[in-house]
């Protein structure tokens, strides 16, 4: 499955909720304000394990818009909208943590 998270983990509980129910093969794509969780910050540990496993992506355009491209945590992969489409195609059911 592909899980998309579009809100900051500082503002909302959606990333935590996603992590509570994600299975061992699914991946996460951070979009919109969700990319705030891609930066090195006090919440980074939430995603570090999954990132090490290569299972965390972030939308490049949203990262750049928020001025945090130099701060993206290790092992988080940046994708463009074409990459977003590829993730949807490759990972089966899409779950949005809106």
């Amino acid at each position, binding site marked *: 499955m592909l899980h998309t998270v*579009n809100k900051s983990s500082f503002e909302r509980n959606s990333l935590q909720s996603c992590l509570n129910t994600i299975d061992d093969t699914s991946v996460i794509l951070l979009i919109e304000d969700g990319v705030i969780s891609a930066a090195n910050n006090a919440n980074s540990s939430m995603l570090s394990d999954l990132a090490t496993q290569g299972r965390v992506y972030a939308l490049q355009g949203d990262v750049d818009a928020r001025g945090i491209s130099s701060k993206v945590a290790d092992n988080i992969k940046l994708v463009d909208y074409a990459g977003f*489409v590829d993730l949807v195609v490759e990972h089966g059911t899409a779950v949005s943590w*809106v």
Partner: protein
Amino acid sequence: MKISIQINEGPYQHQASDTAYLFAKAAIDAGHEIFRVFFYHDGVNNASRFTMPPQDDRNVVNQWAELNIKNASGEPELVVCIAAALRRGMLDESEANKNGVEGNNIHPAFRISGLGQLIEAGIQSDRLVVFGD
């Protein structure tokens, strides 16, 4: 692949519709089919032909219209939920007449229909992706 999209928020207030548009465009560019875009909740507000953004800003409504997403019969597959639309003041000519309202505001690239269209999109498409708040 056949991909459908659900949009839960209106234009300008939330990024949902912008992201969904860029996603849909990228999917089409990659050779996929956008089977249907279903506008629900405040998402119905994306269909207003009254929308007049500033000159230096994108026009979210026209962007969708220009994607020209239609089915084999030539009907638009930008579908606005009728129940959500009526309570939020989005009317096409037929609904305006039914309700005795002078005027209407649905852009002709969109059509109003029922929630069944969302379920059907889920059934007929290989993927359904939701964009919201």
